[in-house]
């Protein structure tokens, strides 16, 4: 019994260590991963266009489509992609210093976030035709309203809600992450494909059915 107790203590101790180590690791991991990519100010200087502090990025569905295409010449066309800019927290807190509840946000920075649909899609029972759109959101504490809008090639401020094609209300969730750079990606979950929008400790998912 004594051996068993000491074994139990050892396991408890290990469990406690496992708890602590990865937790600190996890908290620091994301900013480290991201900050390695930061453009040093002297490298941002450019006689034509400086490198943006909120760099642009692109996410496809199927995930990593351009890479998949490299190894498969006969791949079907992609289904969707988002082109968005990635602002970062830089010590700020999302809903304290950056965004306000009830005010539209471009889901990124600079140019409005672009959604390219290569085929028709159903989002929460509503059919959206293939084509190019922009997206923005109106965040609330526990839900986000996501608008799909036809006013493309636009800067992200002052979206024209007259040109909304559809609006969806989705839950927003608190996570244990602290995501330094705003992130969008598609993720297949069961029979739907979710467009994940994550920044700081907040995450929202818009379900697509292709």
């Amino acid at each position: 019994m004594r051996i068993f107790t000491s074994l139990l203590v050892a396991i408890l101790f290990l469990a406690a260590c496992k708890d602590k180590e990865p937790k600190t690791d996890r908290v620091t991991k994301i900013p480290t991963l991201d900050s390695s990519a930061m453009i040093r100010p002297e490298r941002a200087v450019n006689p034509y266009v400086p490198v943006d502090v909120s760099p642009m990025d692109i996410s496809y569905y199927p995930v990593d489509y351009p890479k998949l295409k490299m190894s498969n010449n006969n791949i079907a066309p992609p289904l969707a992609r988002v082109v968005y800019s990635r602002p970062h927290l830089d010590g700020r807190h999302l809903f304290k210093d950056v965004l306000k509840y009830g005010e539209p946000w471009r889901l990124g920075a600079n140019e409005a976030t672009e959604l390219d649909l290569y085929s028709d899609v159903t989002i929460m029972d509503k059919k959206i035709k293939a084509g190019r759109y922009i997206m923005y959101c109106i965040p609330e504490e526990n839900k986000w309203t996501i608008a799909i809008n036809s006013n493309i090639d636009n800067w992200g401020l002052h979206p024209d809600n007259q040109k909304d094609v559809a609006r969806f209300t989705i839950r927003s969730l608190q996570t244990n992450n602290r995501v330094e750079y705003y992130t969008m990606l598609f993720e297949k979950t069961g029979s739907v494909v979710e467009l994940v929008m994550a920044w700081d400790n907040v995450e929202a998912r818009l379900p697509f059915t292709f």
Partner: protein
Amino acid sequence: MKKFFVVFFAFQLVFISLIAQTSALPPVDNSPMDMSYFPTNYPVLKIQDKVTETPVARIIYSRPQKISRAIFGGLVKYREVWRMGANEATEIEFYKNVQIGGKKISKGRYTLYAIVNENNWTMILNKDTDTWGAFRYDAKKDVLRTEVPVQKTDELIESLCMVFEKTSTGCNLVIAWENTKVSLPISF
């Protein structure tokens, strides 16, 4: 006792799923993407109500940095097809029909590659879009090949840059990196 192990394993599962979730988020890239329009800054002009027509062109490309490396003839090899950027191949879109190198180019999306030489670049417009790098470049899908002369810049340019500049017949797509630049004339 059993309870303890159940709690212990439940904890491990939660922990593993947290890690999995975290690492699934893509990090910011060392060669960040950027976008240029013609007319220049079209999206800003649009919210200022200064444009009435659609844009003419836009380019989406990634911006690798020089970081003390020799670029042309070094990192970018002479006489090889280059994606003109990093990661995804560079995408150019024309919102209306244009002319390049005396040839009509229909509106639409294309991939833009270059073959870099000491004194000139061969610019290649290719129909195969949404692709990565130049690894599966297929010359059969070329729409256009045209040569442009290399010009030298006074300043050293750290990050690859692409921008449209207005000309009397349309615009030039200016591509600059290190101490080299080329201009691709587009008329419309």
